[in-house]
Protein backbone atom coordinates (compact mmCIF):
# COMPACT_ATOMS: atom_id res chain seq x y z
CA UNK A 1 0.00 0.00 0.00
CA UNK A 2 2.75 2.40 0.93
CA UNK A 3 6.04 2.32 -0.89
CA UNK A 4 9.24 3.81 0.45
CA UNK A 5 11.67 4.57 -2.32
CA UNK A 6 15.36 5.16 -1.79
CA UNK A 7 16.73 7.81 -4.12
CA UNK A 8 19.20 6.86 -6.83
CA UNK A 9 22.65 7.17 -5.25
CA UNK A 10 25.08 9.54 -6.91
CA UNK A 11 28.77 8.87 -7.39
CA UNK A 12 30.74 10.90 -4.85
CA UNK A 13 33.31 13.45 -5.90
CA UNK A 14 36.87 12.68 -4.85
CA UNK A 15 39.56 15.36 -4.66
CA UNK A 16 43.18 14.40 -4.16
CA UNK A 17 46.51 16.19 -3.91
CA UNK A 18 50.16 15.21 -3.97
CA UNK A 19 52.83 16.27 -1.47
CA UNK A 20 50.56 18.57 0.51
CA UNK A 21 46.95 19.52 1.05
CA UNK A 22 44.25 20.57 -1.38
CA UNK A 23 44.70 23.90 -3.13
CA UNK A 24 42.60 26.95 -2.31
CA UNK A 25 41.00 26.58 -5.74
CA UNK A 26 39.94 22.99 -4.99
CA UNK A 27 38.55 23.98 -1.59
CA UNK A 28 36.69 26.96 -3.04
CA UNK A 29 35.15 24.66 -5.65
CA UNK A 30 34.01 22.23 -2.96
CA UNK A 31 32.56 25.06 -0.89
CA UNK A 32 30.66 26.55 -3.83
CA UNK A 33 29.25 23.13 -4.72
CA UNK A 34 27.98 22.71 -1.15
CA UNK A 35 26.26 26.08 -1.21
CA UNK A 36 24.76 25.99 -4.69
CA UNK A 37 23.32 23.03 -6.51
CA UNK A 38 21.83 23.36 -9.97
CA UNK A 39 19.59 20.63 -11.31
CA UNK A 40 20.21 19.85 -14.96
CA UNK A 41 16.43 19.72 -15.35
CA UNK A 42 16.01 23.32 -14.14
CA UNK A 43 14.75 25.91 -16.67
CA UNK A 44 17.68 27.34 -18.71
CA UNK A 45 17.32 30.87 -17.31
CA UNK A 46 17.42 29.68 -13.71
CA UNK A 47 20.29 27.31 -14.47
CA UNK A 48 22.36 30.11 -16.02
CA UNK A 49 21.65 32.43 -13.11
CA UNK A 50 22.59 29.76 -10.59
CA UNK A 51 25.81 28.97 -12.45
CA UNK A 52 26.73 32.66 -12.55
CA UNK A 53 26.05 32.97 -8.80
CA UNK A 54 28.11 29.83 -8.13
CA UNK A 55 31.07 31.36 -9.98
CA UNK A 56 30.82 34.51 -7.86
CA UNK A 57 30.68 32.48 -4.66
CA UNK A 58 33.65 30.37 -5.81
CA UNK A 59 35.72 33.49 -6.54
CA UNK A 60 34.85 35.11 -3.20
CA UNK A 61 35.64 31.95 -1.23
CA UNK A 62 38.90 31.49 -3.15
CA UNK A 63 39.99 35.04 -2.32
CA UNK A 64 39.19 34.72 1.38
CA UNK A 65 40.82 31.30 1.62
CA UNK A 66 43.99 32.83 0.20
CA UNK A 67 43.78 35.63 2.75
CA UNK A 68 43.21 33.11 5.55
CA UNK A 69 46.22 31.10 4.36
CA UNK A 70 48.45 34.19 4.36
CA UNK A 71 47.14 35.30 7.78
CA UNK A 72 47.74 31.87 9.31
CA UNK A 73 51.25 31.74 7.84
CA UNK A 74 52.02 35.18 9.28
CA UNK A 75 50.85 33.97 12.69
CA UNK A 76 53.03 30.85 12.46
CA UNK A 77 56.05 32.96 11.46
CA UNK A 78 55.56 35.15 14.53
CA UNK A 79 55.26 32.09 16.78
CA UNK A 80 58.55 30.79 15.35
CA UNK A 81 60.27 34.15 15.76
CA UNK A 82 59.08 34.53 19.36
CA UNK A 83 60.29 30.99 20.08
CA UNK A 84 63.72 31.77 18.65
CA UNK A 85 63.18 29.48 15.66
CA UNK A 86 64.45 31.93 13.04
CA UNK A 87 65.35 29.24 10.49
CA UNK A 88 61.83 27.83 10.65
CA UNK A 89 60.43 31.36 10.33
CA UNK A 90 62.53 31.95 7.22
CA UNK A 91 61.39 28.66 5.74
CA UNK A 92 57.77 29.67 6.25
CA UNK A 93 58.41 33.08 4.69
CA UNK A 94 59.61 31.36 1.53
CA UNK A 95 56.46 29.18 1.21
Amino acid at each position, binding site marked *: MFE*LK*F*GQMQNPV*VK*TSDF*GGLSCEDLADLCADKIIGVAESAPPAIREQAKFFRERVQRAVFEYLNQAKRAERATCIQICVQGGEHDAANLLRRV
Partner: protein
Amino acid sequence: MAFTTTVMPTSFKVEILKGVHNFSTGSGQTFKLALYNNSASFTAATTAYTTTNEVAASGSYAAGGGTLTKVTPTSTGTTAVTDFSDLSFTTATITAFGAMIYNDTATGNPAVAILNFSGAKTSTAGTFTIVFPAKTATGAIIRIA
Protein backbone atom coordinates in the same frame (compact mmCIF):
# COMPACT_ATOMS: atom_id res chain seq x y z
CA MET B 1 36.84 -8.21 -10.65
CA ALA B 2 36.53 -4.45 -10.54
CA PHE B 3 34.74 -1.71 -8.72
CA THR B 4 31.73 -1.08 -10.94
CA THR B 5 28.79 0.30 -9.06
CA THR B 6 27.44 2.86 -6.65
CA VAL B 7 24.66 1.06 -4.87
CA MET B 8 22.69 0.80 -1.65
CA PRO B 9 22.92 -2.78 -0.32
CA THR B 10 19.59 -4.59 -0.14
CA SER B 11 20.45 -5.69 3.39
CA PHE B 12 20.56 -2.01 4.42
CA LYS B 13 16.98 -1.50 3.26
CA VAL B 14 15.88 -4.44 5.39
CA GLU B 15 17.87 -3.16 8.36
CA ILE B 16 16.20 0.25 8.09
CA LEU B 17 12.84 -1.49 8.67
CA LYS B 18 14.35 -3.41 11.59
CA GLY B 19 15.68 -0.24 13.21
CA VAL B 20 19.31 -1.36 13.04
CA HIS B 21 20.69 2.03 12.01
CA ASN B 22 20.54 5.37 13.81
CA PHE B 23 21.99 8.36 11.98
CA SER B 24 21.21 10.99 14.63
CA THR B 25 24.15 13.15 15.62
CA GLY B 26 23.61 12.91 19.37
CA SER B 27 22.29 9.46 20.19
CA GLY B 28 23.26 7.88 16.89
CA GLN B 29 25.78 5.24 15.99
CA THR B 30 29.27 5.45 14.53
CA PHE B 31 29.53 5.18 10.76
CA LYS B 32 32.80 4.72 8.93
CA LEU B 33 34.04 4.91 5.37
CA ALA B 34 36.62 2.41 4.15
CA LEU B 35 38.52 2.67 0.85
CA TYR B 36 39.07 -0.23 -1.56
CA ASN B 37 41.25 -1.18 -4.51
CA ASN B 38 39.96 -2.36 -7.86
CA SER B 39 39.86 -6.01 -6.80
CA ALA B 40 36.83 -5.31 -4.63
CA SER B 41 33.62 -6.50 -6.25
CA PHE B 42 30.73 -5.16 -4.24
CA THR B 43 27.12 -5.40 -5.38
CA ALA B 44 23.65 -4.83 -3.94
CA ALA B 45 24.10 -8.26 -2.33
CA THR B 46 27.04 -7.00 -0.21
CA THR B 47 26.04 -7.05 3.43
CA ALA B 48 28.95 -5.96 5.63
CA TYR B 49 32.37 -4.36 5.94
CA THR B 50 35.32 -6.51 4.93
CA THR B 51 39.07 -6.03 5.18
CA THR B 52 39.56 -7.90 1.89
CA ASN B 53 40.89 -5.53 -0.79
CA GLU B 54 40.86 -2.54 1.57
CA VAL B 55 43.68 -0.10 0.82
CA ALA B 56 46.71 -0.14 3.13
CA ALA B 57 47.04 2.25 6.06
CA SER B 58 48.80 5.45 5.10
CA GLY B 59 48.96 8.89 6.70
CA SER B 60 45.74 9.45 8.63
CA TYR B 61 44.06 6.47 6.92
CA ALA B 62 43.99 3.44 9.23
CA ALA B 63 42.53 -0.04 8.73
CA GLY B 64 38.75 0.22 8.92
CA GLY B 65 38.76 3.67 7.36
CA GLY B 66 37.73 7.01 8.78
CA THR B 67 34.84 7.95 11.05
CA LEU B 68 32.13 9.97 9.33
CA THR B 69 30.62 13.07 10.88
CA LYS B 70 26.87 12.64 10.67
CA VAL B 71 24.25 15.24 9.85
CA THR B 72 20.98 14.55 11.65
CA PRO B 73 18.26 13.25 9.29
CA THR B 74 15.70 15.83 8.28
CA SER B 75 13.00 16.17 5.67
CA THR B 76 12.94 18.36 2.62
CA GLY B 77 9.50 18.42 1.08
CA THR B 78 8.24 14.85 1.41
CA THR B 79 11.70 13.30 1.20
CA ALA B 80 13.74 12.24 4.24
CA VAL B 81 17.44 12.88 3.86
CA THR B 82 20.64 12.40 5.77
CA ASP B 83 24.20 13.34 5.00
CA PHE B 84 27.80 13.17 6.16
CA SER B 85 30.46 15.85 6.27
CA ASP B 86 33.21 15.47 3.70
CA LEU B 87 35.95 13.13 4.86
CA SER B 88 39.67 13.76 4.33
CA PHE B 89 42.72 11.59 4.87
CA THR B 90 45.90 13.64 5.11
CA THR B 91 49.56 12.94 4.33
CA ALA B 92 48.31 9.78 2.70
CA THR B 93 49.58 7.76 -0.24
CA ILE B 94 46.46 6.01 -1.46
CA THR B 95 45.02 4.65 -4.68
CA ALA B 96 41.35 3.77 -4.31
CA PHE B 97 38.62 2.87 -6.77
CA GLY B 98 35.70 3.06 -4.37
CA ALA B 99 34.49 3.02 -0.80
CA MET B 100 32.05 1.42 1.58
CA ILE B 101 30.10 3.25 4.26
CA TYR B 102 29.29 0.91 7.13
CA ASN B 103 27.86 0.95 10.63
CA ASP B 104 30.75 0.47 13.03
CA THR B 105 28.46 0.22 16.07
CA ALA B 106 25.93 -2.37 14.94
CA THR B 107 26.79 -6.05 15.26
CA GLY B 108 28.62 -7.35 12.19
CA ASN B 109 29.47 -3.91 10.79
CA PRO B 110 26.57 -3.87 8.30
CA ALA B 111 27.08 -2.04 5.00
CA VAL B 112 25.19 1.19 4.30
CA ALA B 113 26.40 2.24 0.87
CA ILE B 114 28.85 1.25 -1.82
CA LEU B 115 30.48 4.20 -3.59
CA ASN B 116 32.17 3.89 -6.97
CA PHE B 117 34.80 6.55 -7.73
CA SER B 118 34.56 5.81 -11.51
CA GLY B 119 38.27 5.06 -11.80
CA ALA B 120 41.45 5.24 -9.78
CA LYS B 121 41.82 8.19 -7.41
CA THR B 122 45.34 8.71 -6.12
CA SER B 123 47.03 10.88 -3.54
CA THR B 124 50.79 10.83 -2.96
CA ALA B 125 51.81 12.08 0.47
CA GLY B 126 48.79 14.34 0.12
CA THR B 127 45.13 14.76 0.92
CA PHE B 128 42.45 12.32 -0.19
CA THR B 129 39.00 13.88 0.21
CA ILE B 130 35.61 12.25 -0.36
CA VAL B 131 32.98 14.90 -1.07
CA PHE B 132 29.36 14.02 -0.37
CA PRO B 133 26.57 15.58 -2.42
CA ALA B 134 24.59 18.48 -0.98
CA LYS B 135 21.80 17.48 1.42
CA THR B 136 18.88 18.01 -0.94
CA ALA B 137 15.80 16.00 -1.89
CA THR B 138 17.47 15.03 -5.16
CA GLY B 139 21.12 14.83 -4.21
CA ALA B 140 21.67 13.72 -0.60
CA ILE B 141 23.67 10.55 -0.18
CA ILE B 142 20.76 8.75 1.57
CA ARG B 143 17.22 9.72 0.66
CA ILE B 144 13.86 8.08 1.29
CA ALA B 145 10.96 9.47 -0.72
